[in-house]
């Protein structure tokens, strides 16, 4: 029983710098890092010390409060340093990589011979569990609670997103094995969301043992949260797991080869990249090698992930655990004179969902025009004044402004009633983009979810 969902609400932000579908390989980075902050709310407990040797797939740290969830090294090498911040919180574990990756010994397994518990154990031991996330709260899944369904989005609709069809080429077998493994973990369905507007890759379209749902519309149509809401919404007390389609292939690869092979192809994109392309690198890779010589001159912002939900990183930072793209856009830390490029300017350089800017006109005249947007907030933070603008980009039967206000005021009952269990911060990314108030809405939703996690889960 598959579903077809067509949505009108949403917004496709058209940016300059989409990655050309050309794959280039890079020498493996000399350094990789695991950042606990990538896995929200997780407190790491180190297993290895500085200076110790590690093979790819060996445990570096585990979750302090759930020891079964292990975090493993993507490369073989030496633990170079454990970087700590305030209160000795671990910010990152930096590993110097060997030139040749040595994998921890293990052999391939046929998923079909295993039962659910065994699959779970395998995945936990192999360090694959962190790629399974749960809703509500949007954190690494709790392996002890059975989910009612598992959702996989087969495409990414965010600005300059990597093309999953391109990245899944030739990975049909791995993807299917990944699906088979996940299917053992739930009595419910595996939902695979496909983009109804384009042809999907064979890996997706020929996947077996899944319920395929087709989606038509604008971003956030590819967000798994949107898909869950329109296929099988989460009620209080229910649990749903989500896995990124590209990570499904990685999970499958583990079962097929017995190796924790964390190489991943990422899109290097954005207006400040001279030639946006796809590059093969590895989970947690240091970015210097990737970025050197490929970025235009000037003051730029490096983002691990997409422009709406990614993390700000330095040029010598590291690729985030859930990210499959690096976006480089201009930094906007300069004054803008109000009549030329500022708040009362003609606005042809700005992309706005509101008709206060002539984006609507450009959309009509030149529908393919792409924009070069910088990181300026284009205004100062204000109280909520304008109403109805968040609703236009939020395709949920949830009242976004009321929910955000409940989150800001720490109103637990209000959040529960208004549907906090169904959402993740990323679902509010467009709301944050369009909001006149310039409030960091995703951050407020995240704080709200943390509170719910503390009080109600």
């Amino acid at each position, binding site marked *: 029983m598959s579903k077809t969902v067509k949505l009108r609400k949403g917004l496709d932000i058209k940016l300059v710098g989409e990655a050309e579908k050309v794959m280039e390989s890079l020498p493996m980075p000399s350094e990789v890092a695991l950042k606990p902050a990538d896995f929200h709310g997780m407190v790491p407990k180190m297993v290895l010390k500085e200076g110790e040797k590690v093979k790819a797939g060996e445990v570096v740290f585990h979750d302090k409060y759930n020891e079964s969830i292990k975090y493993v090294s993507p490369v073989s090498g030496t633990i170079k340093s454990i970087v700590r911040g305030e209160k000795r919180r671990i910010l990152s574990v930096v590993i110097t990589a060997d030139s040749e990756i040595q994998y921890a010994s293990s052999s391939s397994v046929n998923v079909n011979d295993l039962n659910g518990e065994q699959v779970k154990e395998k995945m936990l031991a192999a360090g694959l569990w962190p790629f399974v996330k749960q809703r509500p709260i949007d954190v690494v899944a709790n392996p002890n609670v059975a989910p009612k369904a598992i959702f996989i989005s087969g495409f990414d609709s965010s600005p300059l997103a990597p093309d999953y069809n391109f990245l899944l080429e030739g990975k049909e077998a791995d993807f299917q094995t990944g699906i088979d493994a996940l299917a053992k973990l739930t009595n419910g369905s595996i939902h695979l969301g496909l983009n109804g507007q384009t042809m999907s890759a064979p890996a997706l379209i020929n996947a077996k043992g899944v319920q395929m749902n087709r989606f038509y519309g604008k971003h956030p149509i590819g967000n798994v949260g949107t898909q869950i809401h329109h296929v099988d919404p989460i009620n209080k007390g229910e649990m749903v797991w989500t896995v990124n389609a590209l990570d499904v292939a990685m999970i499958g690869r583990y079962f097929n080869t017995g190796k924790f092979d964390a190489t991943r192809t990422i899109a290097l994109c954005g207006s400040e990249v001279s030639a946006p392309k796809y590059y093969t690198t590895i989970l947690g890779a240091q970015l210097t090698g990737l970025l050197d010589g490929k970025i235009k001159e000037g003051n730029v*912002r490096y983002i691990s992930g997409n422009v709406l939900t990614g993390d700000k990183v330095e040029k010598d930072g590291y690729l985030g655990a859930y990210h499959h793209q690096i976006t480089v856009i201009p930094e906007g830390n*300069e004054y803008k004179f109000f009549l030329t490029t500022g708040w009362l300017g003609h606005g042809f350089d700005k992309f706005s969902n*509101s008709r206060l800017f002539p984006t609507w006109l450009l959309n009509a005249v030149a529908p393919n025009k792409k924009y070069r947007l910088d990181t300026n907030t284009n205004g100062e933070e204000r109280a909520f004044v304008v109403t109805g603008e968040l609703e236009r980009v939020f395709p949920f039967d949830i*009242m976004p402004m009321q929910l955000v206000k409940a989150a800001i005021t720490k109103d637990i009952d209000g959040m529960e009633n208004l549907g906090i269990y169904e959402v993740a911060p990323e679902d509010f990314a467009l709301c944050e*983009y369009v*909001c006149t108030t310039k409030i960091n809405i995703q*951050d407020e939703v995240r704080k709200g979810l943390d509170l719910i996690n503390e009080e109600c889960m």
Partner: protein
Amino acid sequence: MKFLENILHKMEPNFSKGGKFEKWNPLFETMATFAFTPKLVTQKGSHIRDGVDLKRTMMTVIIAMIPCLLFGIYNTGHFAEVAKGSSIAASYWDGFGTKFTSGLIVVLPILVVSYGVGLTVEFIFGMLRGHALHEGFLVSGMLIPLIMPADVPLWMVGVATVFAVVIGKEVFGGTGMNVLNVALTARAFLFFAYPTSMSGDKVWLSGQEVDGVSGSTALGDLASFMSDKPVFENLDAYYGKYSLMDSFMGMIPGSIGETSTLACLIGAAVLIFTGVGSLRIIASFFAGGFVMGMILNAVGGNAYLDLPAHFHLVIGGFAFGAVFMATDPVTAAQTATGKLIYGFLGGLVAIMIRVLNPAYPEGVMLAILFMNVMAPIIDHYVIQSNIKKRLKRVKTA
């Protein structure tokens, strides 16, 4: 503009923390952020942001009010000339320049007082709270003059503005936090605090009352139908003085900016197109007024009750209220369904008060203020229905 930017850089240390004029930082920041969109950048979450900000939004509302302001100035000028009994008073469009100038002489001081007093109060609160001016008053400062009678004493405008900004807005926390529409609070304050000069048949009067010239308005005359001493014998006589077309164009006496339905509709077009004003509220407000007019027609009984429903929409401050007052997003209902209910009831109550309550010749102001208070309750029930839908899902699942 590098030149201005350099000045800004040079002055900035003086106003920042520890500088000579640290106290005056809100004032400096207001000026600086007016001239230059500041160099604030996103830190987390969405790295890019929409171009829209509150300054541009508010500026759009002001632009939308310009037709009302210009027409109001001319209309005020015309009736000032009528009151003087000058020769150009006979025809509405005669002596365009003279009338516009004399209108300007009346309106400009009111505008200056409204902005001057209001912004001063806002700055004082800004300095107390250590934040720059929030843009809300830019619109309120324009709305206040437009809903004042032309002969209002300037000191009353000032007092009303102070009251509206302090009690209407700042005590609740400033822009975005107020319960009642700020401009209407100013109008209501005058209405109740100085009833002798603001009510009775002198309400909405433009220009001075001179022998032989009626200073009353369409609404005042209509209200007299409800009393023993009607101004007109019947509705036909009324149409003779205030035709539908004149009322629509705004060529009748009334508060400065409210008379022209046409100018209001131009403003409405700007607001609806840009999305700043809610089409739902504006349309349902008109619908509510029209429905109440029809109901009154069905009841009938005297000339005022028999006045065709569409007349109600073009006289008094109905159109102005619907377009610029009811749509204030802070005080209106905030949910989509809530906006429809809010607008409809607002229009309904406005005409009900206008016709049935002899004490208030114009009901729009009170109706909108009343609905401002009711808006959270409307929203509450709309939100509850969303919550119930979600709870129902659990039970059926």
